[in-house]
């Protein structure tokens, strides 16, 4: 079943269903009007604007003629003007009420249409049959002012909501419309929706990459800031992957599409961000329970107050009716309904623009409660891509040692092997025989002689004499790993390999400490390496020699002490630990976000974003609480006031203005919630 993105109804994904394709994704709708609102939101906006203009144009003369009845027939003019406002401008409330009746529920429109219809109907009867009631007063001004103010409030709310969705809309709009597909050596402009996997596309400087692809010709600088939040351009060459929607800055390149439509990174990000802002957050439970029974309760409260003031309070039919109208108008279930989603949508959009993806709404609430954080060393705090440091040579030159190591490692998939191959510039010959010893190193036969590259245990087991322990000690003291290179029967060199600390890691730890987080580092490396990295980063607590399954035990032990634990690690290798933690934060590579475990994904791999996750989550939860408090207090305080709480102090005459005040309060109650949520855009992260 698919969810209608406009009204939230569940729709069967049938062939003949009402649907619309946007950015490769198919959306299903319950009705043509929902589809139209989705495809042309500006049309709905224009209609609302038109109705407001007509409403104000007619309401002002209604008010004037009500208080200054120049001629006897003025009341008929007022009736005509008020009727247009009631049934043309106010038609959206009747439509909403019909929808509510169809779904056997009550909603905000039910209350507005009921309230204004009571005022309009009563005034119409008094206008045409003045002898039915004792009063001669008409309240067309009440119904028209209420409709006009509520419509104006709705318009303001629309404007605010547009701003709330800004970040998500920006994501949606970054994909280009057309791709220059190369077909039989000719360039053909094809709509992006029609690009297929494997298509060869030309992307010129200044253009956006139409879909996730691999560069097959050329070199360029790519601005990925719209996806990762990272402002520095990244150099991309043949074989490198580019994300659809990112900007090609300098070179003209040919690319091959590898992911299209719904499978692209951008499409997945949009999907996750939109889903996250629509999911339920535990804190919302009470608001949901109340808002689902709110409308019938308000109608009962309105009728009870009417009966009380008419039969017991004896304030007369007119004022009693105005009590009913005021209650129906002032009650605002909408503020409760949007208190959480409004904050979530601003927050998840803000997070996305910083390269942070909250995979669901609940993860924001969970992140706000975290007090303990476990950081995996490799890939989170350190680069995870080993780099060669100093090379110690014995009787041979450095280039020869590197060549031997490169020959030995040519078949190796180990990151250390890759680091050696990256460093060696020259022709590498293939060895005759290759043997890999997991955790120890490699042994090859090259031109009849053996080359061994590995740790001292491997050297020892191969019975090669070795006495240069001080070199190893020196490398390990600096946080590196020593790789011994043996040629035939002798140790000819020692290569040091370091996993350097990531840019921003120190700042990240400092920020987390400022937030009073209890910080732990875990690593599979030995204690010495772990201690050096921990010291450099000012981390007091660490676990070394930790196997992946032992990470779960560490998390469990902390959870048993009632700690709320977040685990930060690689989204694929650390999956079990990320799932076990109260909050899993995956440092993603930027392209495979849907596959990554974790409640939060940091797609730009920037450790500084770890602290931002918690800051934003705390601020969002605080906004949700403020919004809910506002929505609850608004209704708790104002409904009794509308119900006659002020009559003992000011008399029933207060109802000459109270329905107007009720309409103003109602019109701006939801706007207050949305504009309060918008403040999240200004939060310093």
């Amino acid at each position, binding site marked *: *079943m698919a969810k209608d*993105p*406009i*009204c*939230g*109804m*569940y729709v069967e994904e049938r062939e003949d269903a009402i649907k619309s394709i946007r950015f490769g994704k198919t959306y299903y709708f319950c009705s043509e009007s929902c589809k139209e*609102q989705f495809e042309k939101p500006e049309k709905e906006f224009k209609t609302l604007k038109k109705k407001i203009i007509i409403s104000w144009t007619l309401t002002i003369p209604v008010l004037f003629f009500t208080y200054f009845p120049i001629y006897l027939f003025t009341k008929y003019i007022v009736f005509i003007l008020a009727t247009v406002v009631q049934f043309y401008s106010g038609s959206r409330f009747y439509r*909403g009420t019909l*929808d*509510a009746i169809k*779904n056997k*529920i*009550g*909603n*905000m*429109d039910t209350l507005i249409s009921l309230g204004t219809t009571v005022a309009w109907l009563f005034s119409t009867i008094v206008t045409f049959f003045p002898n039915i009631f004792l009063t001669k007063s008409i309240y067309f001004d009440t119904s028209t002012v209420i409709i006009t103010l509520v419509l104006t409030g709705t318009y303001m709310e629309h404007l605010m*909501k547009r701003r*709330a969705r800004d970040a998500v809309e920006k994501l949606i709009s970054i994909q280009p419309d057309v791709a220059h597909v190369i077909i039989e050596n000719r360039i053909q402009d094809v709509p992006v929706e029609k690009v297929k996997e494997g298509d060869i596309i030309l992307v010129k400087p200044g253009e956006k990459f139409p879909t996730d692809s691999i560069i097959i010709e050329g070199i360029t600088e790519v601005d990925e800031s719209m996806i990762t939040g990272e402002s520095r351009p990244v150099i991309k060459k043949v074989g490198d992957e580019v994300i659809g929607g990112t900007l090609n800055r300098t070179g003209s390149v040919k690319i091959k599409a590898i992911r299209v439509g719904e499978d692209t990174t951008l499409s997945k990000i949009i999907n996750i961000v939109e889903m996250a802002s*629509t*999911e*339920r*957050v*535990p804190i*919302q*439970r009470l608001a*949901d329970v109340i*808002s*689902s029974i*709110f*409308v019938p309760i308000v109608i009962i409260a309105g009728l009870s107050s009417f009966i009380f003031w008419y039969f017991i309070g004896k304030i007369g039919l007119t004022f009693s009716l105005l009590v009913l109208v005021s209650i129906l108008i002032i009650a605002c*279930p*909408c503020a*409760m*309904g*949007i208190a959480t*989603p*409004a904050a979530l*949508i601003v927050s998840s959009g803000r997070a996305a623009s910083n390269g942070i993806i909250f995979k*669901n*709404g*609940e993860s924001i609430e969970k992140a706000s409660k975290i007090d303990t954080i476990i950081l995996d060393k490799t890939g989170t705090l350190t680069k995870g891509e080993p780099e060669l440091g100093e090379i110690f040579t014995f009787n041979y030159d450095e280039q020869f040692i590197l060549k031997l190591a490169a020959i030995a490692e040519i078949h190796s998939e180990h990151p250390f092997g890759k680091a050696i191959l990256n460093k060696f510039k020259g022709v590498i010959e293939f060895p005759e025989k290759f043997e890999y010893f997991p955790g120890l190193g490699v042994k090859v036969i090259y031109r009849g002689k053996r080359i061994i590259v590995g740790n001292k245990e491997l050297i020892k087991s191969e019975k090669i004499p070795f006495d240069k322990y001080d070199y190893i000690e020196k490398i390990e003291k600096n946080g590196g790993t020593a790789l011994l290179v043996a040629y035939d029967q002798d140790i000819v060199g020692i290569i040091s390999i370091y996993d350097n600390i990531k840019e921003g890691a120190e700042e990240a730890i400092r920020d987390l400490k400022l937030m009073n987080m209890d910080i732990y580092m875990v690593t599979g490396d030995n204690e010495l390496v772990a201690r050096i990295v921990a010291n450099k980063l000012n981390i007091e607590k660490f676990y070394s020699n930790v196997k992946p399954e032992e990470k779960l035990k560490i998390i469990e032990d902390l959870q048993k002490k009632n700690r709320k634990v977040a685990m930060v690690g690689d989204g694929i290798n650390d999956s079990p630990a990320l799932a076990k933690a109260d909050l899993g934060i995956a440092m993603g590579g930027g392209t495979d976000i849907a596959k990554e475990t974790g409640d939060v994904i940091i797609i730009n791999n920037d450790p500084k974003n770890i602290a931002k996750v918690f800051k934003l989550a705390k601020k969002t939860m605080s906004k949700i609480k403020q919004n809910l408090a506002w929505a609850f207090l608004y209704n708790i305080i104002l409904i009794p006031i509308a119900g006659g709480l002020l009559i003992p102090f000011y008399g029933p005459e207060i109802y000459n203005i109270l329905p107007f005040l009720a309409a103003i309060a109602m019109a701006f109650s*939801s706007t207050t919630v*949305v504009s309060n949520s918008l403040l999240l855009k200004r939060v310093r992260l």
Partner: protein
Amino acid sequence: MIIFTQKALKIILKKKIESIYINIIYVMGPCNENLCKMIPKIEITTSPVKTEYVLYQKDPIKVFINSYLYKKIIKHGDRVLIKYSVVRGKFMAEGITYSF
């Protein structure tokens, strides 16, 4: 884990119910606009509705759970209590974290 109250068990035996289905149903939110979402609720039925289920446990009766809800229950380690409301005349579930 799903447990039953004594009252619920009595009703199950009395009505010879063989399995129950824990579903999510959606009711309209309080306003007609896209920010104001539908409200999910848990509903227990004794026959399946058109959705995907996971067989959660077989004892004392078979309990099928909506697959989405199942993932959430597992994720939170929820301890769900099934009880029978005499006033409403139906089974109710308690203890499911509100995040579905």
